Structure formats: structure tokens, C-alpha cells
């Protein structure tokens, strides 16, 4: 077996190139034909021809844990109603909108290391530079991140989201099975691993924090709690909007999450 595998390794690179080329051709061929088929008749005015590719075809979803996921989904729904909703209401009543916006911006700015590491690992130096620029501008001109001053700099606007999950995707790792995590909600295996790593990149979770003079454990706990509280109204708004218009809330959220992540990693 040994010599054979050596030989395989020897020609494998060329074979890979040839294989990719053939695959590309095969993949491109139907697309070319489809484009021709769509163009050849006069501008179609009668909608929804059967011969054109179905742009909304349901993609196969990996959800082997669906029964468990549905149970956790239900549990989370109850938890949001019992705990998170009152918290969000109270927070919104107690703070004026500019304060809410400032806190959202502050915690978003604090997550800069996640985006930087994500872009660097994905091999996207331009975005890493943009993110660094955003962080510097918002931390200085934006008063420690309370104001998104970077939005007035065109080159720093609309930088696509990044984190370990998007870096894994850039390496070619697929999402894996769909998961509903307790409390946190919809996820997939790739992004769950990414998320677990991202947590360590948030400065408030760094151990260096503990070496500050006069550190108390409740500093960190307080900041983390504030982070959850300030993010709760936006989170619930998205969640509620989705659920209100859903016919099967679980399927709607699963599809919505997977579509969202697929487009985020493609950006």
C-alpha cells in the first residue's frame, strides 16, 4: 500500500487542478444553458415559467436533533417571556433612547477583537484594517465607543460581520447540523464552536481585567449583565417580529437563521 499512496501524493496536485477544472466546467455548463434558456424567449411577462430555475428551492437542512431542538426552542420561548421580556421593558422605560444607543455602540465597539481575529484568520487584511480603523475612530472621536463616529467615514461603513465562525466558513468548513442552544437560541455546530471562542476575545472576559487595582468580581458581572440587558430589546424585537409572521415558528427561525448565516459568511 505504501508505494501506491506515495505515488498518489505525487500526482495528486495536478489531479486536483484537473479535477477542479472539470468540476468548474460541469458546474458552469448548466448555469450557461439556464441563462440562455431564460434569454432566448422575448422578455417574459407571464410570470413563473416552469422551465426556469427555482430561485427559492428549499435547500436540504441538517437537523438530526430536531425533536430536542424543538423542545429547547419552546423552553427558550418561555424563558424569554418570563425573564427577558420584563427586563427589556424595564430597561427601555428606565433609559432614554440616546443612552440605549450609546450602550449598544459601546458594547459593539468592545467586540472589536472578535472581528479583527475573524478577518485575520479568514485572510482578509483589508477588512482587518477597516475594523482597526473603526475601533480607533470610535474609541477616540466616538467617546470610548459610545458614538459610532466611523459611520461618517465612507471607507469604514458597512464592513461585513466577522468572527471565528465566518473564519471557519472561509476555510471551507460547512455549518454542520442546526442546533438550538439553551438561552442563546438558534445556532449551528460551526458557529457554536466559533461563538465559544469569540467569548474569550471580548475584553471584559479577559483575565488581565482581574489584575486592575481594586478589582471586584462584581465589576465583570455587572458589565456582563449590562451587556445582556442592553441587547435584550433589539433581540426580542427581531425574535417577536419573526414569530408573529410565522406559521411554524421553529421552521421560520431555523430557516431565517441559516439564510442569515449563509449570506453573512458569503459577504
Amino acid at each position, binding site marked *: 500500500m505504501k508505494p501506491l499512496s506515495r505515488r498518489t501524493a505525487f500526482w495528486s496536485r495536478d489531479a486536483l487542478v484537473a479535477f477542479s477544472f472539470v468540476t468548474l466546467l460541469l458546474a458552469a455548463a448548466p448555469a450557461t444553458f439556464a*441563462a440562455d434558456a*431564460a*434569454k432566448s424567449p422575448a*422578455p*417574459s*411577462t407571464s*410570470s*413563473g415559467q*416552469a422551465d*426556469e430555475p*427555482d*430561485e*427559492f*428551492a*428549499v435547500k436540504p437542512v441538517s437537523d438530526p436533533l430536531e425533536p430536542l431542538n424543538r423542545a429547547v426552542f419552546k423552553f427558550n420561548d418561555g424563558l424569554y417571556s418570563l425573564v427577558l421580556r420584563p427586563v427589556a421593558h424595564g430597561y427601555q422605560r428606565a433609559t432614554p*433612547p440616546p443612552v440605549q*444607543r450609546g450602550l*449598544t*455602540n459601546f458594547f459593539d465597539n468592545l467586540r472589536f477583537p472578535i472581528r479583527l481575529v475573524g478577518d485575520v484568520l479568514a485572510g482578509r487584511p483589508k477588512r482587518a484594517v477597516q475594523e482597526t480603523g473603526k475601533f480607533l475612530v470610535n474609541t477616540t472621536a466616538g467617546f470610548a465607543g459610545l458614538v*459610532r463616529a466611523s*459611520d461618517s467615514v*465612507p471607507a469604514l*461603513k*458597512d464592513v461585513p460581520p466577522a468572527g471565528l465562525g465566518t473564519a471557519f466558513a472561509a476555510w471551507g468548513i460547512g455549518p454542520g447540523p442546526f442546533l438550538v442552544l439553551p438561552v442563546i437560541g438558534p445556532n449551528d455546530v460551526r458557529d457554536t464552536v466559533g461563538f465559544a471562542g469569540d467569548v474569550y476575545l471580548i475584553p471584559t472576559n479577559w483575565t488581565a481585567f482581574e489584575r486592575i487595582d481594586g478589582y471586584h468580581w462584581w465589576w465583570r458581572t455587572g458589565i456582563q449583565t449590562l451587556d445582556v440587558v442592553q441587547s435584550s430589546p433589539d433581540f426580542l424585537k427581531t425574535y417577536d*417580529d419573526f414569530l*408573529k*409572521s*410565522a*406559521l*411554524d415558528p421553529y*421552521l*421560520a427561525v*431555523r*430557516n*431565517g437563521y441559516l*439564510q*442569515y448565516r*449563509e*449570506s*453573512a459568511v458569503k459577504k
Partner: protein
Amino acid sequence: MKTRPPIAARPVARFGRSGTAALALLLALASPTVPIFAAAPATPPSAAAADPQAMLRGAVDEVLAVAYPEKPADPAAPAPAPLAERVRPVLEKYFSFELLTRSAVGPGWNQTKPDDQKRIITLFTELVIRTYSDKFEPGARPAVTYAKPVEIDAARRELPTSIAYAGKTYSVSYRVRQQPEGWRIYDVNVEGVSMVANYRAQFTPLFDKGGAAAIITAIEKNIADYAAAKK
């Protein structure tokens, strides 16, 4: 993202004769489905029919005018109708709800009886209009910027926009299709989530289990639950 007013919306007179010719050429290049002579007059209605982005701008402006009136409501006047009712005529003008519903139901559509198809279109239209009008919140008017349209094929375009609203920016993309009456919207994609694809994922198992009747029951239930929650 740099945005310019749509070519068709810019005043023609200012450009003079050669300007008009250049405009006609540009329009013809921009939308291959339109013969050059049709673009020459470039009055707003025909321009809206020819240029998908002009149609979308018109639609967005009309919706915003309804949702965010310039004049504050007269306190003496009777309370206005719910937003969903007020935006319905505007949306019906610019959306093809038939195409939208057909796309959301998917392959099962052709096996559905015409009466059931009609019922599904009516119900789904109500659900979509309600969902859409729920997105508007009192406060500052959202600012919409338009990016370059993407051609899907001769009859279809994707129109990316971004909406700045309450300190945040959302990417919203519209899919439009050439219909006999002009370009019509048949999907809205918010932050990468296509509304039609999302409903397709829910309709497909319903249809597989209980056919068109299951879809009708599910939408009716959603509409009833929503009305009950509002009371």
C-alpha cells in the same frame, strides 16, 4: 455607497437635445428589454415602467409618505385607519402578490385548484402586508439609499438598498420582475433572509402533509391569533 438619482427621474429639459439622446441610449443600455424609442419621452410613468429602480423609488417614497406623514395628525380628526389598511393600496400597486404567493408555495402551486389558489393569495397578501406595516415604528423617517441593480436575467432584477433607521443600518434587497403592467416586486430580502424562501420552508411541509387546505388553515390561524392578541 454612492447613490445618484435614477437616470429616468432627472429632468430632461436641462440636458437639451443631445442630453435626451444620451439619456435614451443610457436607458436602453441599462435595461435591454426596452426598445430605444420607448425610452425617448422619459416621462415619469413610462420611465417607472421601464426602469425597475425608478419603480422601487416610487414605491418606497409612496409608502414612506403614508407611514410618515409630513403634517402631524390633527388631534381633532378621527383616528386614522391602521397602517396596514393605509399602505395596502400602495403595496398592491407595486407588488405582484400573485407571483409572490406562487413563489412561496413552490412546486405545490400547480397542483392547487384555482379556487384554493385565489384563497391562498388573498390570505397570504394580508399576512405579508400586515408583517410589512408592522416594521414601521413611530419616530424618525428611515433614510433609504439605493445601490446598483443586479441583473438576474432579462426579466428579473435584484435591487439592493440600505435603510438607516434609529441609528442602525439594515440591508434590504428587493427582487422585481417584468410583468405586463411594469416591474413588480416579488420578494423582499432583509439582512440576507429572503421572505419568500422563509415562507417556502414553512409551506412545503404543510403542503406535503395536508395540501392546499393545510396552508389555508395555517395562515387563517396566524391571522386570527394576531387579531386576538391585538384586542
